[in-house]
């Protein structure tokens, strides 16, 4: 019993010498000394800005960025690594994007209302009942043909600002919408084209890196197609279109796909990229 007590009390004694604690009660002390204390003490309840938040030190962010970049190249199926790369490298760019959103009326509304796209928030029956040619119908067909679901997006964890965490979450969740608008499937070629579009649009370092290094795994023929036709088309559309984060997609389900494309200045793809199956 005495040894058990000692075992339980020892961590408290350790924290007396080292300010900062793990329990939520001593939240004040934890926050003010966060500069000195290793972030271990802060990662449980006390310093979280949003539910999934994992606070990280600059060294950890550097290691994460390097590690996730390497792992994403090594194993292209690790989509979580691409997400982590985006979170750890995108802080400055996210601020620019957030300010862009604030200046636009529709974007500001999105920032305020914080809509989320997942199977629970989408009204699937309503979407299915929409007329042929509408944006909602096209989106649903995209999800069916490529057998993807809006629920596979990992939540943001390593962004140390709650609003920016929402911005990057929103960017991830509209990724499928961009696929629909650009008419690209979810195979490697399609993904790279969408990444080029996103890189020009958002300027996120992760998009730029994926756009530059993604084509490494492609065959020579696909690479030729990519460089000669698809990339110029994606870049041109990316430059011409207004910020895609400013579009409130959830209010545009009934809008015809062509009309939405025209509004954003997106033209038809130069050649048809075959989808899965």
């Amino acid at each position, binding site marked *: 019993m005495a*040894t058990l007590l000692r*075992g*339980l009390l020892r*961590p408290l004694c350790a924290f007396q010498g080292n300010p900062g604690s*793990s329990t939520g009660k001593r939240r004040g002390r934890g926050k003010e000394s966060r500069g000195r204390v*290793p972030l271990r003490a802060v990662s449980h309840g006390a310093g979280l800005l949003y539910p999934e938040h994992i606070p990280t030190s600059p060294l950890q962010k550097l290691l*994460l960025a390097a*590690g996730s970049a390497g792992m994403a190249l090594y194993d292209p199926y690790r989509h979580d690594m691409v997400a982590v790369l985006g979170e750890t490298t995108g802080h400055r760019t996210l601020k620019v994007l957030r300010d862009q959103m604030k200046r636009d009326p529709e974007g500001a509304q999105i920032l305020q209302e914080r809509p989320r796209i997942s199977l629970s928030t989408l009204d699937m029956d309503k979407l299915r009942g929409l007329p042929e040619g509408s944006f909602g119908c096209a989106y649903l067909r995209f999800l069916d043909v490529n057998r993807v679901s809006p629920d596979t997006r990992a939540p943001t964890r390593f962004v140390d600002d709650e609003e920016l965490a929402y911005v990057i979450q929103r960017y991830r969740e509209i990724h499928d919408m961009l696929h629909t608008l650009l008419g690209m499937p979810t195979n490697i070629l399609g993904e790279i084209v969408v990444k080029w579009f996103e890189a020009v649009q958002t300027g996120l370092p992760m998009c730029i890196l994926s756009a530059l290094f993604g084509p490494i795994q492609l065959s020579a023929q696909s690479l030729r197609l990519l460089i000669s036709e698809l990339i110029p088309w994606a870049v041109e559309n990316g430059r011409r279109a207004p910020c895609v984060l400013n579009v409130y997609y959830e209010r545009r389900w009934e809008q015809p796909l062509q009309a939405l494309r025209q509004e954003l200045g997106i033209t038809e793809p130069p050649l048809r990229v075959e989808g899965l199956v």
Partner: protein
Amino acid sequence: MAALGSWALWSSCSRGRSRAVLGCRLPGLRSSSPRSPLGARLLSQEKEATETHFGFETVSEEEKGGKVYQVFESVAKKYDVMNDMMSLGIHRVWKDLLLWKMRPFPGTQLLDVAGGTGDIAFRFLNYVQAQHQRKQKKQLRAQQNLSWEEIARKYQNEEDSLGGSRVMVCDINKEMLKIGKQKAHAQGYKAGLAWILGDAEELPFDDDKFDVYTIAFGIRNVTHIDQALREAHRVLKPGGRFLCLEFSQVNNPLVSRLYDVYSFQVIPVLGEVIAGDWKSYQYLVESIRQFPSQEEFKEMIEDAGFQKVTYENLTSGIVAIHSGFKL
């Protein structure tokens, strides 16, 4: 006794305060503020009885077992890869040193608790097999004039290459045992090996059964360490040996500083990049800090009834091997 009864009533009164006011029959106690010495002491007693640490978090004891189970369930597949990455392969040396210290001979019955993926068990089997082969070679060399019948009998009796040694791998986690069985199958270990699902605090074995009990990097995850130690004492034969390989307190201040930085900055990142699991590896490094020091653990082992308890630091105390005998 009366104090205990009134404590129970006081605690139930305080908990039921938010619900409808049931007649709390001891107005004296109800009105006493928690700052009174009696109240404060009772509060802290209640807290110690049901709460424990999970890394740097505080959880109830019932929760801890489940949470630890989830951690190991999720890390099982990448467990060995991560061990190599995090310790830069040094964990293999530590485990070899544990076997070296054990010096089993053919015929030893080993119980490896929290043995999950089988690292200690496989090393044990290799060791006793090598020992047995060496013994047999020595025997053959000593006997130069064997008759035909004796030689034939020697070849026929070659079934038991382990000389009677057996190892039971016991683990509370099904995923870890699954990985261990797959490894055994892949590496060709069949004889003398058994896989048991069991809780270190309540081992499914009779008293006085094993010659050696080992627990490598497992005891810090047990909710009631003293209970596990008592169980170890129970299942060992008189003369049996208890061996524990576990992370411990570093004794060198420079190494300690580097080790801290490495543990908290690098290891969770490795966990996220390689295994896609930050939180489990955060728990790992925190649970290491929560484990008692070498001396304290030695006292705990002595409390459980072991004698001649010693410990040996490896790598400046990052890891320690504690050893005790049931006499």
